[in-house]
Structure formats: structure tokens, C-alpha cells
């Protein structure tokens, strides 16, 4: 591997794993001509370490990327910004060799490279730290760091040199200020520590371009500061970062430049000091009220009432209600257990005590089947994992929950079913050729609409929508909101879980803020702010 950069190869392990005593600036200067110790910050006149030029990529039915270009300089923290579905992750998957690109070029230090698979990306010094940890939980920290590249006593026999492995790991961990022993099992580490191990793993593989995907999403304040210290430290050594984050307020603190994508197209690259509202405009491309259409209707009868719902260690005495014509928002941070609440009401998870009333009548819900019978639907947060039978047709997916309606006894009425699904395709504007097309060929937004259609087909009046707009493009998002409006107008009641506050503020009649399994506060969109919601999410009541 890496015949193309023999010098780097010799030098990087030294600079990575050694402490300041061995830190040889002269050597580093020779080997890394772009690195300048006088100006550790980014120098734009240098050669970019990475250039992605006019990258395009299509999936069946979607144009994911169109002529997107990205330049990263040595020691730069380059923020990649865009809504879900804007093409950030596709671009990064092309860079890390997960997807092939349709067209465009990738240059590393002015040399064109082809990255066919993740292994080649790693060999070229490109490493991705994923949102969800990719570590082997039952192996030790050292084993994880060197997984696949174990330090061997004898190359031929494949015998691992454990003492060297642990020693080297310890050195890397020290440079990251991570005070865990290399022998610790990864499953015993916190989320923040696991992330550091991932970074250590990348460094040990001599990565010089690190991609961080939402690294702060599940970190506490103090852990974020620690992460930022490490990032600043590493950039001093010429390591570049591509930093994906939805937390706009972080950008000016850690980033140098920002590249904004929207609907698979490049909007522009601007300095990280650009004001946040301008960044939002670049991301969204239109005014916020256009994005979140909302027509309020006077609320009708109470459809759902939940009283004193408790599940040991998860949910604590939760009570709330929802009326026909209402969209009730559930706000909260990761770990606030909004999904757990929805699942407990829906019967997908067990509950220890508490009662559920539908139209004033108590109902016993022990399983999703009970909930569906009572007229409750739950659109789950993870479309692919929890909602769709991907190898099946659109038709089978739409009628999965309400199949009885299209049956006589145990037998399916194929014609009725086909016609009904055709109707749903039309009324929800699902872009598909026919009902028997496989659902996995649809785009994210259309797949989500298939799941919505499933719950419409059950004639459920009480609908839990758990992050329905995650991973769908802007256009489809607007359509989903319009659909929600239409549903409540027709007398449904929607409980809407979202982590995106502007969305909640724009679309909901009421917002319930959850914190650690409790409802901390009820707020009204016209009388509250994002700050207030965040305050109660973080502090509780």
C-alpha cells in the first residue's frame, strides 16, 4: 500500500505516536512542505490536500449529487453543511469508496486518484469517523485501534506482538489525552471515549484527512470541548478535517470554511465566520414559512389521553392528550425518550403502569395489533430498519398494517388491493411506476410517503409521526407537512416527534418538551422560542 508516499509513510507514524520529546520539526518540515510552523492556521496559498471536482452521482429515481466540488487544505477544518438529503453523506461515501461516482475527479495533493473501495480510501489516508460507532464492542481499545493492521511478531505466522500493540496504542491515546488503558474493553467506554478510540484508530492508520460525521451529536458540553481541543491539536500537525454537523453554532468555533450543499448541488463555500442566518438561507434556499406550511383548524374532540404512563427507568409518570385537528409536537434531546413514549403508547414496548384512553374510553394496548385496532398508528423513526419490508412491493408495504380490509376471510382480494394502492400513489403523489414496483427502488421521500400511506390505509385517527422528515429532500419535506395539515383537517390528531426545532415551532399547535423520560413543559409556538425549548430540554423542570 501507499507506494506513492514513501516519505509520509516513514514520518507519519513518528509524528502520530510520539510525544513532544521526539517531535522533530525539521523532519516534519521536509516531509510536509505545506506545513508551516510559524502559521499553524490555514494558509490558502498552499496546495489543497484534497480536491473533489464536479462530482455527480445518481441513484434510481434521484439525482443525489450534481457537479459538486470541494477543496480541503492541510490543517483545515472544513465544515460540510446541508439538510438531510442534501448529499453530504453521499459525497463522503464517494470519498471513502463506499459508492462509485458517476463522473468527476478526485485529486489528492494534485494527483488524480481513483477510490474504488473503503480499503483504498484508508490506504490513501482518508478515514471516516461515523456517527454510530463502528468498533468491535467485545475487543479491547488496542485491538480496535489496530484491527486489521495488528503489530506482528512474525509476519508469516501472524502472531500478534501484544506488548508492542499495547505500547503503540498507549502512545496514540496519550496524544489524544484519553486516559483509558489499551486493554479496556470498548463496550465499557462512554460514547465520547469510543469516538476518541475511532479517531485514534484513524490516526494509527496514518490518516491525514479525517471525516467527522456529527461528532458532537451525543456529547455533553465538556466532552465537546475536549473533542475540539483534540481537533485543534491535530490540525497543528497538518491533519485536515471534513466536519459534518447540524449544530450551526459550532461552526465558527471550530471551522475554517463552510461548504453548503442543497438538493445535491453546491451552493457555495464561505468562511466559517459567516453569520448563522446567512448559512441557514444557503442551506434552505427559501424563506422558512414557505418551508413549513401550516393551516390551523379549530381543535375538536379529544382523541387520545395518556395518563400516568410509566416504564421502569425509562418513562416517568407521563400524561398528555391530543385532540382532533391538533398537531402536538414532542421536543427533546437525544435521551429524552420521545420515541420510547410513542412506542409504549403504541404497544411496541412494554409499560409498567398507566392508562390510555381513546375518545374517552380506556383501551388495553399490549401489542401494536391492539393499538392499530384502537385507531392508533406509529410511523417509526427509522424507515428502513423499522418500517419497510424492502424486498417487497409498494403494494405489500402499503397494506401491511391494514391488510384485513383487503381480505375475505384468510384470502387476499388482489384487485381491490391493487386499486386502493393505485389511489394512494396518486393522492400522496408517490413517484412510482406502478404499485408492484419494489419499495427499495424509491427515493427516501417517496418511501416515507409509502409508510404514511400504510397508516392512512388502516384509517388510524391518532398518528405518531417519529422524525418523518429525516433523510428526505426539501421538496418531499414540504409535501409531508402539507399531508399532515390535510390529515388534521380531516379530523386526525398527530403527535409529531422532531429534533429540528424550527420545524416544530412552525407546524405544531402545542409543543411538549421531554427531558429524561418526563414531560418537562408544555409550550405554545407563538409564545416560545428555540432557546426556551432547548432550556427545558436540557434542564428539565
Amino acid at each position, binding site marked *: 500500500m501507499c507506494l506513492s508516499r514513501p516519505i509520509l509513510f516513514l514520518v507519519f507514524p513518528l509524528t502520530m505516536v510520539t510525544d513532544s520529546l521526539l517531535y522533530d520539526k525539521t523532519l516534519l518540515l521536509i516531509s510536509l512542505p505545506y506545513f508551516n510552523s510559524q502559521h499553524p492556521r490555514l494558509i490558502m496559498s498552499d496546495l489543497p490536500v484534497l480536491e473533489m471536482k464536479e462530482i455527480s452521482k445518481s441513484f434510481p429515481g434521484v439525482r443525489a449529487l450534481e457537479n459538486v466540488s470541494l477543496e480541503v487544505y492541510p490543517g483545515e477544518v472544513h465544515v460540510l453543511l446541508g439538510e438531510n438529503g442534501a448529499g453530504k453523506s453521499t459525497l463522503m461515501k464517494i470519498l471513502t469508496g463506499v459508492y462509485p461516482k458517476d463522473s468527476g475527479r478526485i485529486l489528492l495533493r494534485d494527483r488524480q486518484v481513483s477510490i474504488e473501495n473503503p480499503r483504498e480510501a484508508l490506504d490513501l489516508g482518508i478515514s471516516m469517523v461515523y456517527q454510530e460507532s463502528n468498533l468491535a464492542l467485545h475487543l479491547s481499545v488496542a485491538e480496535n485501534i489496530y484491527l486489521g493492521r495488528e503489530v506482528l511478531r512474525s509476519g508469516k505466522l501472524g502472531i500478534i506482538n501484544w506488548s508492542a500493540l499495547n505500547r503503540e496504542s498507549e502512545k496514540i491515546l496519550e496524544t489524544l489525552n484519553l486516559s483509558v488503558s489499551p486493554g479496556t474493553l470498548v463496550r465499557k467506554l462512554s460514547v465520547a471515549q469510543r469516538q476518541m478510540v475511532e479517531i485514534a484508530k484513524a490516526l494509527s492508520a496514518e490518516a491525514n484527512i479525517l471525516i467527522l460525521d456529527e461528532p458532537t451529536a451525543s456529547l455533553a458540553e465538556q466532552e465537546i470541548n475536549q473533542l475540539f481541543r483534540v481537533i485543534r491539536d491535530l490540525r497543528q500537525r497538518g491533519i485536515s478535517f471534513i466536519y459534518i454537523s447540524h449544530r450551526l453554532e459550532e461552526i465558527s468555533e471550530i471551522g475554517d470554511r463552510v461548504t453548503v450543499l442543497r438538493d445535491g448541488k453546491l451552493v457555495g463555500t464561505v468562511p466559517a465566520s459567516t453569520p448563522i442566518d446567512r448559512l441557514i438561507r444557503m442551506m434552505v434556499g427559501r424563506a422558512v414559512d414557505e418551508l413549513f406550511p401550516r393551516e390551523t383548524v379549530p381543535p375538536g374532540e379529544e382523541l387520545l389521553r395518556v395518563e400516568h404512563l410509566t416504564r421502569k427507568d425509562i418513562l416517568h409518570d407521563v400524561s398528555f392528550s391530543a385532540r382532533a385537528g391538533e398537531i402536538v409536537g414532542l421536543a427533546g434531546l437525544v435521551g429524552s425518550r420521545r420515541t420510547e413514549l410513542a412506542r409504549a403508547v403504541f404497544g411496541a414496548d412494554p409499560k409498567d403502569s398507566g392508562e390510555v384512553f381513546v375518545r374517552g374510553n380506556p383501551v388495553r394496548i399490549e401489542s401494536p*395489533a391492539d393499538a392499530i385496532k384502537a385507531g392508533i398508528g406509529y410511523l417509526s423513526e427509522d424507515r428502513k*430498519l*423499522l418500517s419497510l419490508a424492502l*424486498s*417487497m412491493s409498494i403494494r405489500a408495504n402499503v397494506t401491511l398494517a391494514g391488510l384485513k380490509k383487503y381480505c375475505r376471510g384468510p384470502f387476499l382480494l388482489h384487485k381491490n388491493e391493487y386499486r386502493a394502492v393505485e389511489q394512494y400513489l396518486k393522492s400522496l403523489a408517490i413517484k412510482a411506476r406502478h404499485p408492484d414496483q419494489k419499495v427499495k427502488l424509491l427515493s427516501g421521500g417517496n418511501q416515507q410517503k409509502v409508510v404514511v400511506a400504510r397508516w392512512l390505509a388502516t384509517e388510524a385517527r391518532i398518528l405518531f409521526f417519529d422524525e418523518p422528515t429525516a433523510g428526505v429532500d426539501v421538496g418531499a419535506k414540504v409535501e409531508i407537512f402539507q399531508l399532515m395539515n390535510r390529515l388534521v383537517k380531516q379530523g386526525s390528531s398527530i403527535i409529531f416527534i422532531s429534533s429540528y426545532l424550527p420545524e416544530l415551532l412552525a407546524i405544531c399547535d402545542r409543543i411538549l418538551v421531554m427531558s429524561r423520560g418526563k414531560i418537562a413543559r408544555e409550550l405554545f409556538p407563538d409564545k416560545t422560542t428555540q432557546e426556551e425549548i432547548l432550556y427545558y430540554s436540557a434542564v428539565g423542570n
Partner: protein
Amino acid sequence: MPFHSLGDLGRRLASFISLIIMAVVLSILSPYFLTFENIFAIGLQMSVIAVMAIGEMMIIISGGIDLSVGSILALSGVVCTSLMAQGFSMTAAVSGGIGVGIICGIINGVLISKGRIPPFIATLGMMGMARGAALIISGGAGVQLLELPESFIFLGAGRIFDLVPVPVVITLFLACLGYGILKYTRMGRYTYAIGSNPEAARLSGVNISRYLTLIYTFCGLLCGLAGVVLASRLRSGQPTAGTGWELDVIAACVIGGASLSGGEGTVLGAIVGAQIMGVLRNGCNLLDISAFWQQVAIGAIIVVAVFIDQYRHARE
């Protein structure tokens, strides 16, 4: 289900087309191949495997596996013949044989759906238990009967219109039944859904344990029936019958387009898969190729079938 493109149709019938091609090639190489006698001989030879493959196919579609089919087959044959040896009527004996298959299927289903034991383990256990029970009941040797009722022999050796072997007719009937269940009933739809994404099925209100139990029970029933037919063909209950057949049955399903990760497969595929194995064996015999090479060929066909399937999936 309407076909929406020629490619779609081709994919669905891929295994069927390869069967036809094999038949054409063999009929050129051997004039004897394309005679009624030979065709029905293949059907007869593969009937027991094919019947079990119908049940196995439904289990594989649901994302499971059943390793106990061969053992249940033997147990059912032994129970059926033992009952006859005890002087029970033929109807009672046949019902007993099928009934014991159903019971084994129910046990499999309950262990898997309620006991949350992985199908591989639960049916591995059943494979041992059913085989053991067959050996205990028969005392380790075949259950031989001095005289068998004509009607019982007819099940395995009879011919309809003096031409079509009864086991072939039974296979065709059961194939239609399985096809109907998968295509025209709620149970069939749920079978695919459970195999494709069990959590999505559960969150859509599908009673997964009920349907899994039903599926394994149906497979047990088919194994019981196959056991009775085999006992009739062998004119005895052999406790060691069907040893290793679970692999032939699974191979038939895989050759016929089942995906071991669940959600995909058809009854037609199971039947065609069984016939491909049968035709291959028959062809080797006609062309005087040794039985050892037959095993190599069948092994290779399994690998090739799955390879083609994977390639197709990667392109999708």
C-alpha cells in the same frame, strides 16, 4: 401478479429456464431421457424431497430454516408403520404419521416464536429428538410388515391411469396448495413480510408468533405426509430414512431462488429446484457418469445458483 417487463419475467423464471435447457441438452444426448417413463421416474424419485421443499421454502421465506425435515420424515414413517403393525386401520395409521409431523412442527414453531430460540438451533434440536424417537419406537431396525393393505401401497407405488405415479400427483397437489397459500392468503403475505423485516411486520400489527407457528406446523405436516409416502414406497418404516435429506431440501430451495436471509422465494422455485437436482442425477445415470461426479455437479449447481442470485442483487 402482473409482470412489468421482460427482464422481470426472466428473473422470476431463471431457474425454470435452466431446467428446460438441461432437459433439452439431455434429450439430445440421450434418446431415452424424454420419455414419459423417464420423466415420471424423475418426478417419483424427487417427490419426497419436493414435498418437504414446499414447506421448507415457506420457512426460508419467513427468514428461518428447518433442519429437522429429514428426521420428522423418518419418525412419521416409523409411527405410521408401527401403528399398522399394532393392528390399527390404515386411515388411523396414516393420520398418526401425519399427526406426529404436525406435532413436531408445532414444537418447532413454539420454540422459535415463543421461546425465542434461533430456528437453526431449535430445529437442530428437533432433528436429533425426532431421529432418536424414530429409533426408539422402531427399536433401531426397520418396521417390517408381513402384509400391507393395497390402499397403503397405492400411496407410494400406485399409478393413476396406469401412467402417473401417485406421489407425483400428491406433490403437484401440495405445490398448488403451497402456491395458493403464499399468493392468495394473508398468511402468505405475512410470511414474506416477516422474512423481509420482522420488526416492521410487528409494528404493523402482524402477530408474528402465531404466523411463525403456523408456518412451521405446515412444514411439519408436509414432512409427515412425505414420511407416509416414503414408508409406502419402501413398504416399511425405516428409522434412518431421510438422513441428510434436510440438506437436499434446503439445496432445492436455494437452487429455486430462495434467499437464506428471508423475504424471497416461491413454491414454483422449490419444485423446480428439486427437479433440477433430479434431472441432474437422472442425466448422470443415463450418461453413465459416476455417482461421485453427481455429487460434485449438484454441489457446483448450488454455488452457481446462489452466485447468480447475488450478482443479480448487487445490480439491483
